[in-house]
């Protein structure tokens, strides 16, 4: 596929009087691993929401796989959205269902309503779900109740859900915000390996820039909604990072 996975042209996002993103223009290609860094409130989450179609830009164009989401009908839009999987910080799983249903939720885009309903009684396509769980190292938990898993395990289930979705790009919003350093490395390595192996794109927002340098191929520095730099890790200097965080007296210091 020659087309970029994401293409943003003069994108701005307003929330009432507040400007969350202003005049962003960039493209993200297949196989890239992009880290979004910047202080709280810089617009990282807004950026991700634009990529998966939760938000439509106030001005400008966002193209996903060459399609402008704001111009698509609901069916076509859903088809494009299936190509983008998102891992959330709070997992957003249905905790009173078993793991297999939560993982299968990633396949819903390809299932008819009847099949989806039947699957709740008689789980369908288990091989795919089991395979995804094996990839995240949780093969034995297929029929466990989700609310009986630890936070880290739940995060892996959320990741497995994205894997069965088989998207072209994976978005991750602060995936390591609430887990300890050792597990953070484990998860980031997993994300890197899973995307690298399948040639997928990864866009991840990180508050801890050390991880960004270690696991990503491209860093986007955002501050107050504006793009400060867009460079490979090797070209990002310490002073750039200082500028990104320290010049804003209103924001707390980064956890470096």
């Amino acid at each position, binding site marked *: 596929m020659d087309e970029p996975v994401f293409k943003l042209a003069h994108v701005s996002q307003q929330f009432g009087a507040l400007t969350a993103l202003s005049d962003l223009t960039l493209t993200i290609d297949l196989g890239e691993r992009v880290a979004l860094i910047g202080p709280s409130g810089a617009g990282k989450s807004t950026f991700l929401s634009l990529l998966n179609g939760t938000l439509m830009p106030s001005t400008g164009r966002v193209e996903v796989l060459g399609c402008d989401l704001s111009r698509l009908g*609901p069916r076509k839009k*859903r088809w494009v959205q299936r*190509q983008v999987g998102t891992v959330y910080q709070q997992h*957003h*799983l249905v905790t009173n269902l078993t793991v297999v249903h939560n993982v299968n939720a990633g396949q819903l885009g390809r299932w008819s309503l009847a099949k989806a309903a039947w699957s709740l009684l008689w789980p369908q396509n288990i091989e795919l779900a089991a395979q995804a769980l094996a990839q995240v190292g949780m093969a034995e938990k297929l029929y466990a109740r989700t609310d009986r898993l630890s936070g880290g395990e739940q995060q892996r289930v959320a990741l497995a859900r994205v894997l069965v*979705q088989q998207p072209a790009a994976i978005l991750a919003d602060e995936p390591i915000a609430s887990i300890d350093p050792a597990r953070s490395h484990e998860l980031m390595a997993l994300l890197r390996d899973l995307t690298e192996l399948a040639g997928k794109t990864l866009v991840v927002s990180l508050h801890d820039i050390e991880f960004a340098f270690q696991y990503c191929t491209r860093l986007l520095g955002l501050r107050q909604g504006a793009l400060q730099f867009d460079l490979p890790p090797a070209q990002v200097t310490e002073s750039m990072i200082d500028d990104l965080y320290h010049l804003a007296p209103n924001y707390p210091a980064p956890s470096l």
Partner: protein
Amino acid sequence: MSSSHAAITKLFAWPSWVNRRSFWVVMVWVAISTSLYTASATGTALINWNGLGQFGEFWLASLNPDLSPEFLAIIGRATLVTFAYAVCGTTLSVGLGFIGGVLAAETWWRTVFPPSAKGSWLGPLMWRWVRVLLAFPRAIHELIWGLFFLSILGLDPVVAVVAIAIPFSAIVAKVFSEILDETPQEPLNALLNSGAAPATAWLYGLLPQALPNLLSYASYRFECSLRSAAVLGVIGAGGLGYEILLSLQSLRYSQLWTGFYALILLNGTVDLWSAWMRRRLGFTSRLDLHTPAEVRKKSNALNPALHRSQDWLLRLSWGLIALVTPLCYWRLNIGWERLWSPRTHRLLADILTASRPVWPTLEGFQALLHLSGLTLAMSILAMALAGLGGILLSFPAAQTFLLPAGCLSIGGTKGAVRARSLFWGSRWILLVSRAIPAPIWALVFLFVLFPGVWPGALALAIHNLGILGRLMAEVNENLDERPVRSLQALGASPGQIILYSVLPQNLGRFLTYIFYRWEVCIRETVMVGLVGAAGLGRLLTEQLSSFDYSGLAITLGCFILLTLCVDWVSQQIRKTQAEF
């Protein structure tokens, strides 16, 4: 900039106690005192001491119910029939109410017409439409629905089943939609963003989370259906309501009491069983009405009790439900084919033509306004009394309060005995109050009160007190005990604990229940209109017995308007509670 400016103006322009909340507090007091004035405006004495004999006669008969085998056989059969109607009415109204609840949920319309997509304005519009549409079936009492369906479907069990199902499914739809909207939305949004279709995304992302709450409310609905099924007996459904009305026709008190005991037994059993089911499902509240503020605080974590759902007793219960439900449908022999028979179409066309409203003259309009005022006054007095009484009785009736090991327990053997008798005593009062239908209460009060608004208001108050007190006791049982325990450790008395810890935590929920019930109460004024009480109910029964369909259409319109108003006011007040 402008918003902060507005905030500052708001801050400085008014003293802090002038806000929406104090406005509504004042409005509630004004409403209650106006109602008091209206009710006492007749200028006659209130209490009729000479009627104490008849009053006592009614109560004495409670010690001496008719237990002859023939009569017990009749009552036993009638109890089964009432039970069967309640089962059919509940299952149907929960099924239809679920569909309505999805369509009345803001979340559904946001899913179908996402705010960021084209045509997003359609969502809120459709949502509002459905909400208004649902007010129509709710505003009209089951008995009136029953008479309406009787005139188009004829004499058949289907009439009573549909008469329960129509208003109840609208109520279920309203509550279900609130539960669905208050269920955490993130899993749903996550699925939608990954390209799942709306219905599938709901099936996996929202419904499983909401299910225990929906089931819990459905079991409460069963208790309500039981009470309605008893009332509908008079229009050909048979059952306890029919036998009780026959005994009432000739004032055979001892037979009446046999019927009441059957109702009490039925209500009590269902109450115990459904409370047990809910506990096993991990949801202790039968009607989980939240204020929006509470929902924000509520975590997504589920009660650990849920893990015991493998319980074999629970499975047995599900098995029984699966077995008994079709049995009830079979037993009643419901003539569903009447719903689409050509005769029904013809009769429906007839009644719709006959009920084309003739607009009232100015005088007629004034009379309607006056009667609506009386109905409103009656319902406000009833709810004020029921609310107050319910709150008072909810403390001794809560399992976790006065009983040994409860948070207000006094200790000692003597204390324990007293606490136990208070507990069972208050539970009994609540059970009897809600099991005996409101019209019976009205007649009983008519012995000792002079006619007017009061007998009806008191009858509705007592009946609703039984329902509210039970709901409130449950709120008390679900209370966060930590603040109570800490006050107890300080050596505070039970009264002080209630004032400083229990009421501040629970009052919001209590008020939500009272306002929820108020709407039901408006509809129930029809029932006490039958026994010489005042208001729109009186007019309605007169019009019913004169087959004055065009007049009926107008009167029912008044009920619908009143319901919409009450709905709006309670929504406003719930919003105000959310601000604090």
